[in-house]
């Protein structure tokens, strides 16, 4: 073993060269047919040759061989830049990605320069002065050499920069890594091979060329091989592990004694084992996390799609239903003249069926939104009696058609202001009444408002229908549950009561059912009485203020008494 500074130089350069070669071979082995992998190997080979010659040219101080070493340094420098240029153009494709003419031009020029460097046209001789590194005497050919090398390098860098800018996602990560490698390499080369020597006269590090190109080799090999998994954590873990391996491995060679050497060897082997396990576990963790992210993104996209679909479907379905509702209302309002009673009857039925369709579409839209918590409520102060009256009006004729007595009963002096979304609450009451009308064959239906305590208001819809057994009552407010009607009717989607429950509970109320088989049903809900809007009013609130008043007066008919009975 040699001692002193020479040892260190050889040592570090040797390791750098060996590492580069190993990486080059690994990359080539991964895919021998791929142009990128091949070009990388060629680059590494040229680079290694250059590194060795570069180092040797500073060690040999004899005239003849020395001159050849110095010349060959340039030869391999231009070969390196040639493969660098091609590699930057081609990465990461499997085929050579350069047009015919530029390729021919570059190749021919490089061949010419290679030839020239081997002649006195570039370096005519070398001057050796003790204490100063070998100084070659330049000849005119150096111009062409410099021009070619610089053009190739710059063009390669420009190309890389362009591709980096245009890429996205995973590809962009690979280009970023490449760029880091290139930047490190050229910074080191420029600083230690040009700036330091020229400005500071510091030429000590010129022979270490191999070390300067190492970052580039490492980054590029990683970018080529690991094209799926690209994560800083993994790279760091692997890099650190490899560095530790290299250090421990080389330590073996500088052990003071054989017994120490054995220990060092043992440590090295254990570290290799440990390193492999560690890196593997890091890889797994990172892979899993990335998989999770991908899945989450997919889920989010599907969710959004579902939303959009439901919204679109609701919108499309509503259009024809609007037309049906509109035209029938116009006929009923007499726009086409007198209509026979029987026609009016049938049209009333059609209207209520169509309204059920509309409610159905609204319900399906709402269920999906309520469940996701996406439903936005227009909460405001509403009078429960107004809602009761408006629902009464809506179902008046349907009930009459079925021969049922129908009444709404609102006591005087009622404190019935509630803080709810008026439209939604109207749907709930409408849902109760619609159920009663559906399932009650004879008798009566009553909407009854009572005040059990001064701060609670209660609305109940009682009917003389078939009633609901205790067993079915338990499941009633569930999604998609429908009571088995004795008449074998299958109406509704089973969503109405489910939505009603969700809504009432959202407004801090209670909902329930009193019933027994054969004894009729009473669907009820209770809400807290709220005179004034709570302090944390929704921003939306203030904009609706004036429209509120108009809506309220809309609901109240001027001649509607507080007690109303169907004749």
């Amino acid at each position: 073993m040699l001692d002193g500074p020479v040892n260190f130089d050889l040592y570090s350069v040797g390791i750098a060269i060996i590492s580069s070669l190993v990486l080059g071979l690994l990359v080539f082995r991964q895919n021998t047919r791929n142009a990128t992998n091949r070009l990388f190997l060629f680059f590494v080979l040229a680079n290694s040759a250059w590194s060795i010659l570069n180092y040797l040219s500073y060690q040999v101080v004899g005239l003849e061989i020395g001159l050849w070493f110095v010349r060959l340094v340039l030869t391999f420098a231009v070969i390196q830049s040639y493969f660098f240029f091609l590699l930057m153009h081609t990465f990461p494709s499997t085929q050579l990605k350069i047009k015919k003419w530029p390729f021919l031009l570059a190749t021919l020029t490089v061949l010419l320069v290679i030839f020239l460097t081997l002649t006195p046209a570039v370096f005519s001789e070398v001057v050796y002065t003790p204490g100063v590194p070998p100084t070659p005497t330049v000849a005119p050919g150096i111009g062409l050499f410099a021009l070619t090398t610089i053009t190739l390098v710059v063009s390669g860098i420009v190309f890389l920069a362009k591709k980096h800018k245009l890429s996205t996602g995973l590809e962009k990560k690979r280009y970023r890594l490449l760029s880091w490698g290139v930047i490190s390499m050229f910074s080191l080369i420029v600083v230690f091979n040009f700036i330091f020597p020229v400005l500071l006269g510091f030429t000590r590090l010129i022979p270490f060329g191999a070390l300067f190109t190492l970052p580039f080799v490492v980054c590029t090999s990683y970018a080529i091989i690991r094209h799926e998994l690209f994560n800083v954590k993994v790279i760091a873990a692997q890099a650190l592990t490899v560095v530790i391996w290299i250090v421990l491995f080389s330590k073996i060679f500088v052990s003071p004694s054989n017994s120490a050497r054995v220990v060092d060897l043992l440590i090295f082997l254990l570290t290799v084992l440990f390193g492999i396990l560690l890196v593997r576990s890091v890889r797994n963790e990172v892979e899993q996390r990335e998989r999770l992210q991908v899945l989450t993104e997919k889920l989010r996209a599907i969710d959004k799609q579902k939303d959009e679909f439901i919204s679109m479907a609701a919108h499309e379905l509503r259009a024809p239903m609007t037309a049906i509702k509109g035209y029938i209302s116009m006929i009923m309002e007499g726009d086409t003249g007198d209509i026979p009673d029987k026609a009016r009857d049938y049209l009333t039925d059609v209207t209520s069926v169509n309204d059920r369709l509309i409610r159905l579409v609204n319900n399906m839209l709402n269920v999906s939104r309520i469940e996701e918590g996406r439903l936005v409520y227009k909460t405001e102060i509403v009078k429960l009696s107004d809602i009761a009256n408006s629902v009464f009006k809506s179902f008046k004729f349907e009930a009459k058609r079925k021969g049922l007595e129908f009444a709404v009963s609102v006591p005087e002096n009622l404190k019935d202001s509630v803080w709810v979304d008026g439209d939604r609450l109207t749907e709930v009451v409408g849902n109760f009444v619609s159920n009663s009308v559906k399932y009650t064959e004879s008798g009566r239906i009553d909407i009854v408002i009572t005040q059990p305590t001064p701060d609670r208001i209660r609305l109940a819809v009682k009917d003389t229908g078939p009633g609901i057994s205790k067993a079915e009552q338990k499941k009633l407010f569930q999604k998609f549950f429908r009571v088995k009607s004795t008449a074998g009717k299958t109406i509704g989607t089973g969503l109405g009561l489910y939505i009603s429950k969700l809504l009432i509970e959202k407004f801090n109320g209670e909902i329930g059912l009193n019933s027994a088989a054969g004894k009729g049903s009473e669907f009820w809900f209770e809400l807290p009485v709220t005179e004034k809007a709570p302090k944390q009013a929704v921003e939306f609130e203030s904009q609706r203020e004036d429209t509120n008043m108009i809506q309220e007066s809309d609901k109240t008919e001027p001649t509607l008494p507080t007690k109303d009975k169907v004749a």
Partner: protein
Amino acid sequence: MPADTDSKTTEESTDASAPIEAAESSSTESFPSADTSTDSSKFPKVLFIEDDPLIVKMYQAKFAHEGLNVIVAEDGVAGLKMALSESPDFILLDIMMPQLSGIDLLEKLRTDSKGKNIPVIVLTNLSEKEEEQKAMKLGVKEYLLKANLTPGEVVSKIKQYLASK
């Protein structure tokens, strides 16, 4: 909320003739009846912007019957043009339209001095709270779902707003 079909009657009645009288009486309440003036400019002009021809036909029939002077635009671009050139007293606006959506139209309308103060009701089948809030911010009187109202109810709302101007 699906509404009763003859909401205008104030009494329980299956008499077929009653609705017609009620309709007529409400339309003569605050507007000059047809015989007091042949000048159609006295009738309020409503701009109806809607791309579905079936809906347009239906509402046009109702408007005519109720004594409202109606002009129709079948897409957003034409609608905006007419809103600014025809000085309507009221605008009924659909949201889902090709080329220029109702909301975009509204934004453009409100930046023009001629369009700033025209009362607008949005009449749509799109129940998206986001669109509704945008519309309310742009100063519409109401955001209504077509499927929940009859043409008659829409007309009476328009008349209410015009009367309260």
